């Protein structure tokens, strides 16, 4: 078990380094750099060419943009390890400041979505399998199919449309009511957020919940057909004990191992929804940074997201090892 944890931990670190390198390269890849963008912007603003030259030169020196990429990567990676996320050239503010609240909100919403997905999907999928071909099963199989097929931004748009036309709402988008958007964090602001957040959970989590229902149903059906379930039945166990004690722990396995993978899906899925509903999440910021070739901001966001993903995966692996003796045994 110890070697298993150590193994996973080392793998985690290797993945982090590779991701840092790759994300840096990818962001560096397109021709031109931030200075090109800056020069164009200033030219459009009809700034004096001499001023443009000096401004650009200043930025070049300040960020070491003239150096080779390897040097820049080392510089960036080193400061990242010290906790310095770098400086957004576009916004002229420290990256960590820009990310701050958005990041915590994003992670919060992602975890909430995962919990929402779990709590809704696992029981529904399980019951669908136990009562296969019942009215319950048929209706949820249909709904799950619908949920899988409809992209989340469509759901978001439909929701916007409905709340404006039917409910006459004026402020449907956003995570807060207008009066709280810029307010300091307070209990009232938190309560206000809870009022808004369930809609976001629903829209962001719908697709994943639907697919989890389908996975859970199929896995449960497979498991219930296994001979060891017959063994359990022949002990005289009640249905509940068979389903929960014997079948569920086997059936839920792939869902747990997929948690780590769901995480980035939720973040990228929520990006589109965040744009449609103007939510202060990290996704739109990342998109912005990528479009503006704001290297350090984009890389920092990518790295932080990867870190979240890798840690999520690590936790999922641990949960799986705790649940399944065979995995413990293999290591």
């Amino acid at each position: 078990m110890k070697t298993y944890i150590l193994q996973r931990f080392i793998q985690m670190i290797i993945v982090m380094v590779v991701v840092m390198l790759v994300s840096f390269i990818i962001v560096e890849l397109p021709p031109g750099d931030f200075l090109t963008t800056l020069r164009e912007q200033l030219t459009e603003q009809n700034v004096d060419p001499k001023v443009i030259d000096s401004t650009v030169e200043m930025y070049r020196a300040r960020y070491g943009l003239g150096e080779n990429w390897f040097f820049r990567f080392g510089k960036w990676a080193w400061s990242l390890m010290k906790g310095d996320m770098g400086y957004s050239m576009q916004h002229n503010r420290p990256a960590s400041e820009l990310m701050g609240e958005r990041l915590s909100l994003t992670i919060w919403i992602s975890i909430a979505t995962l919990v929402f997905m779990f709590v809704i999907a696992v029981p529904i999928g399980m019951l669908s399998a136990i009562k296969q071909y019942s009215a319950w099963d048929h209706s949820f199989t249909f709904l799950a199919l619908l949920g899988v097929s409809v992209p989340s931004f469509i759901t978001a748009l439909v929701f916007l449309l409905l709340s404006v036309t039917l409910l006459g709402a004026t402020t449907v988008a956003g995570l807060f009511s207008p009066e709280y958007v810029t307010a300091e964090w307070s209990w009232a602001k938190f309560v206000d957020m809870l009022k808004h957040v369930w809609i976001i959970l629903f829209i962001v989590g719908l697709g994943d919940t639907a697919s989890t229902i389908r996975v859970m149903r199929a896995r449960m059906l497979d498991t219930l057909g296994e001979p060891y379930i017959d063994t359990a039945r022949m002990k005289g166990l009640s249905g509940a004990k068979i389903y929960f004690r014997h079948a569920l722990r086997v059936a839920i396995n792939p869902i747990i191992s997929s948690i780590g993978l769901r995480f980035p899906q939720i973040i990228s899925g929520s990006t589109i929804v965040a744009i449609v509903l103007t939510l202060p999440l990290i996704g739109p910021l990342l998109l912005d940074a990528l479009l503006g070739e704001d290297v350090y901001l984009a890389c920092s966001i990518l790295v932080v997201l990867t870190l979240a993903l890798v840690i999520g995966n690590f936790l999922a692996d641990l949960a799986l090892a705790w649940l399944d003796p065979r995995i413990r045994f293999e290591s």
Partner: protein
Amino acid sequence: MNSPPDTDKVLDIRNLQVSFSSIAGATRAVNGVSLNVRSGEIVGLVGESGCGKSVTIRSIVGLVPSPPALFEDGEIWLRTRRGMTETLSLYKNMKALRQIRGRDVSMIFQEPMRSVHPMMTIGQQITEGILEHEVVDPAEAYDRTVEMLDLVGLPNPPAQMNRYAHELSGGMRQRALIALALVCHPQLLLADEPTTALDVTIQAQILELIKDLRERMSMSVLLITHNMGVVANLADRISVMYLGRIMETGTVEEIFKEPAHPYTQGLLASMPSLFSQPKTHLQSLRGVVPELAMAPKGCVFADRCPHVMPICDETPPVVELRADHSAACWLYDDVEASPGPDAATAQPSLGGDSTLGDASQRVEVIPLTKTEPTAHADQEKLADSDTDQLQIENVALHYPILRGLLRRQVGTVRAVDGVDLSIRRGETLGLVGESGCGKTSVGRLVTRLVEPSAGRIRFGADGRLEEITHIPQKEMKGVRRSMGMVFQDPLSSLNARMNIRNIVGEPLMLHGMAKGSAVDERVGELLEMVGLRAAHQSRFPHAFSGGQRQRIAIARALATEPSFLVADEPVSALDVSVQAQILNLLLTLQQQLNLSMLFIAHDIAVVRHVSDRIAVMYLGKIVELGNAREICVRPVHPYTEALLASIPLPMPGLATLQEMPKGDLPDPANPPKGCRFHTRCPYSQPICEQEEPPLLPFADAVDHFGACHFQDELHLQGVEEIGEIHGPAAAGGEE
């Protein structure tokens, strides 16, 4: 509801009728089955797959899901702690049914590998059963579980309590499952093919255990099996089932000595036994078990029965031949007065060859034993026998075991560890051993499907032997034209998306031997050669039964007219009657085409039946090699003796075994030092743990080798060839 039966019976099934509804309509899987089990009795329910055995036995405890099952008629009376109880009526009362399960009646299943929960310890799973039925504190439940694990012969029971399924071998899992089933002392154990998935030596151990526990726990057993051998030495009474009906019921002696129903006779004759005349055709039943919906009206066996009469269109009566022996057959309708079906049955010959070579007088009256000598029975292939078709020298196949982050090699699985063999032209060499012994790997090495780690392989397509050990795949393609291969699983070895014409014709096209309509023609010929219709070329594999698929696989293997065939367990996935048909086909083809064959199987009776010589393999090594019959009559290696002894003989009272090989097959990654068999060998001496015995000629025999330190001293017990004038003294060989 009728009155409960007399209390001597633990189980009484009366006229059970179970149907399954589907889109195609209802089919009756169990059609009026009556069966009973008395106190302390072991009853065998025998029949081929798809005959409704499992549905019958599962109906007793409500394990048949309904719907789709429909219980149309019948009663099942079971003796419980509350007196005789009708269990079919309990289906609506799950609570009452649950109280019976595990407490009054228990069940063990066919696949021990999958019947133990993978994520719960053995201890948890067994104590759970106790706690479900009895008010005991967990400590007592724990103690009782340990005791039970000890009783079923698991070593170090307290340690087993904390182990998981994946840490136990198949045999150990079945023992644990038996402990689980019996921990509440039920009066009846239902065993659904409990040994089918296990190796022969393990099967023998488990059967012995069931027999032993029956006495010690004074319970009754209802055992389902397709293997007549299994019931012969275990059961007191036998019921033979076919397509949802009981064909014949009787004591084990009567069923085996005087089988009355043609189906029983056919089943018995289909089995290659250790007494049969090798290389002769087995008496097989015609055709295959039909789909339930296609079953004949009247007697369901009519379309396969050699004695079919016009009256068979009507449902046959169950005729009491004598006390405790009845058959559902029109043949005996008029002999009800006079017991002894001999007169009626002795006449019609099934037109085949002998299999039950029992020489005792009694056997003379068995209709099946009329010996009809086959033309090619003992034909010597003198012309060819001098030249070898295949020689392998010191061939090995090692797999590295990689562990850890850096995939370091921490060990080696020695699947094949230095094997020398040769196969002469026109000869069949049987390779026998338990699963994991490396026999399949030898087949794959010979055909170069895997790269050998060491050694030489030489093969002669049609002349001189040529080295093929490491020739490139391009050259190997040419060699493969002379090699055919038949695999174990006829379903997964045929591509489901290709039609038969392309499956069988592919080798022809690959080797450029035919094109276009020439392929169709040749495929047609091949299909007819293996007993299928040429017109079926356009069909897909799913349209064929298991036996037919294996015929297709054989046709494919023979498409390029190879001179050498590797048959890897070609019959072990098939039903008994179909198995006989396929063995007959292989024998015929081998003789017609003068094929050399490497025949790989785990069942030494099957191997003996088709082979000229047998090589016995254990943990990657050949431990004995010699003439097929000689090896069976006078084995020189204790492992061969054990294999022979583990074969359940279809002859009650003729138990072969004195001492079982102990335990399981050791880990091939870590084989025991010295003689690899010493950990399980009853004759083991100190030297066996130190020195590995080489394969040496046995005594004065020319062609008989053994790898045992004591082969010249030990007198091991083989199987006497009853009714054959072929003494063990004839060592020295015919070849």
